[in-house]
């Protein structure tokens, strides 16, 4: 990890710093709303003050207030918390699933591989949004439906990447040597091959995180996502109403927050891929 930090460019380190700042904000917002909920108070992002509707940014409300007089900055922070939950939560579903299936298919080949490829093709052929809709009908609207919906559709990319890399490693001499030594298939897959393809997991995470965040925003904007909490998508949906009357602040700050988060993550993903992908590694050194 330390070696990785040393190989990051200044831009990459800056991206990491920005992500860390986001994370701290999100964790702070999450902790605050959790405390409020435990104390049976209204969390800061939901404090309604009808007499202070649509106030532009000021010293008391840094980012202004919305249609019910709620503080936009508090809602933005809560939205960041939701985004991180989505980004990490969907990865926790998609990455283990994709890695496991990719390992099985790539290592065993044959019928196992056919099944994995078939699963990938089937899931990939379903329109993701419809799938997420269907899942949120079953799991109920809210964050759980989103996590399952995004998680269960996006493992395909992870699986394909891992599978292709495992297929390359399967015929390497060190895997053959492990087989000759009589190690079990599980041991060869998880102790020998997995550490050699693990860098792909980090790359995949950094690619998938902003994707999931953007998808969640979109779903919540449509109204089938997070309920009762200010997801960034919900906020955009809200801000849209009075934008034409010059209420610019809610829309601006939310889109800016999304834009910066997705931008730094994508940049970091690019850089990680350049550093960790062995095919490109030789060219760099």
């Amino acid at each position, binding site marked *: 990890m330390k070696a990785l930090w040393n190989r990051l460019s200044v831009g990459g380190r800056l991206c990491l710093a920005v992500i860390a700042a986001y994370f701290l904000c999100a964790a702070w917002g999450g902790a605050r709303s959790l405390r409020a909920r435990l104390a049976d108070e209204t969390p800061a992002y939901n404090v309604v003050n009808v007499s202070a509707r649509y106030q532009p940014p000021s010293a008391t409300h840094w980012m202004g207030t919305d249609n019910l007089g709620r503080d936009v900055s508090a809602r933005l922070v809560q939205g960041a918390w939701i985004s991180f939950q989505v980004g990490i939560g969907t990865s926790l579903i998609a990455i283990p699933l994709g890695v496991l299936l990719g390992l099985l298919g790539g290592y065993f080949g044959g019928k196992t591989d056919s099944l994995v490829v078939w699963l990938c093709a089937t899931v990939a052929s379903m329109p993701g949004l419809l799938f997420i809709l269907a899942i949120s009908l079953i799991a109920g609207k809210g964050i759980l439906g989103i996590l399952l919906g995004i998680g269960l559709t996006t493992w395909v990319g992870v699986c394909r990447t891992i599978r292709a890399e495992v297929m390359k490693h399967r015929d390497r001499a*060190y895997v053959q040597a492990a087989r000759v030594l009589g190690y079990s298939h599980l041991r060869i897959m998880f102790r020998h091959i997995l550490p050699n393809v693990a860098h792909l997991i980090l790359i995949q995470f950094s690619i998938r995180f902003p994707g999931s965040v953007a998808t969640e925003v979109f779903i919540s904007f449509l109204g089938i996502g997070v309920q009762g909490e200010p997801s960034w998508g919900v906020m955009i949906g809200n801000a849209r109403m009075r934008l034409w009357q010059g209420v610019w602040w809610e829309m601006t700050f939310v889109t800016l927050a999304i834009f910066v988060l997705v931008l730094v993550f994508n940049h970091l993903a690019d850089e990680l891929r350049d550093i960790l992908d062995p095919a490109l590694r030789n060219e760099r050194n």
Partner: protein
Amino acid sequence: MNGETENAREVLFQVKDLHVTYRRPGQKAVEAVRGVSFDLHAGETLGIVGESGSGKSTIAKTLMLLQPSSGGEILFRGTNIASFTSAARRQYRRDVQMVFQDAVGSLNPRMTIRQALEEVRASQPEPGPGAEELLDRVGLSKAVLDQYPRELSGGQCQRASFARALAVNPQVLVADEPVSALDVSVQARILNLMRDLRRELGLAILLIAHDLSVVRNVCDRVCVMHRGLFEDVGPAEDVFDHPRSDYTKNLLAAVPDVRRSLAARKQP
């Protein structure tokens, strides 16, 4: 060497009319080995030489159960290796080990030499020799224990692979082109190592190589392989000094001889 002592030795491998065919969906089947028979006795070094694609590595893979045969049989101490129970197969993995051509690549890049050796030890029912003893046996210093394969030279990696193979106390070592990726001075040292191992541990070695001088220096008996068949089989000196088949004669004639070419150059 001489026939009498050889007959007295235990026969470890009996390979009878072995056929191996590679089948890939959508591709023509390739018959890499087309009926090959040989025996391997305890403590002897048997060489298989041949050009690339002659099927010699396929024999090694089939012996190691990495590739199924399509005909004939391989008996190890009288039992067909294709019909092993899982317990017998586990024992077989302890009796027969392999070293590969790609010395650096045959070690897991994410494991230090110590981890690789300790892993073998942990996988055995009764722990064999320790990592340091194994390294000592193959002539490596303890300094390499905590190094990764990429930090070592090709020769050091090949010694480490020998150490790993020896960690299970095998009786047979299948060496698939163990020196062809190494430079000449290192080659000689690895070949000496093999000779020592054979003498000290009584290992039977199946040496697969394309370099005639390598085989000639180390092996008791030699099989010359061409297009999936053995062209010549016999004691090393016999095969090299009195080749019977045309292919072996051509192969020997193709070896550049420095003295002969120098002599030829002196003449105007």
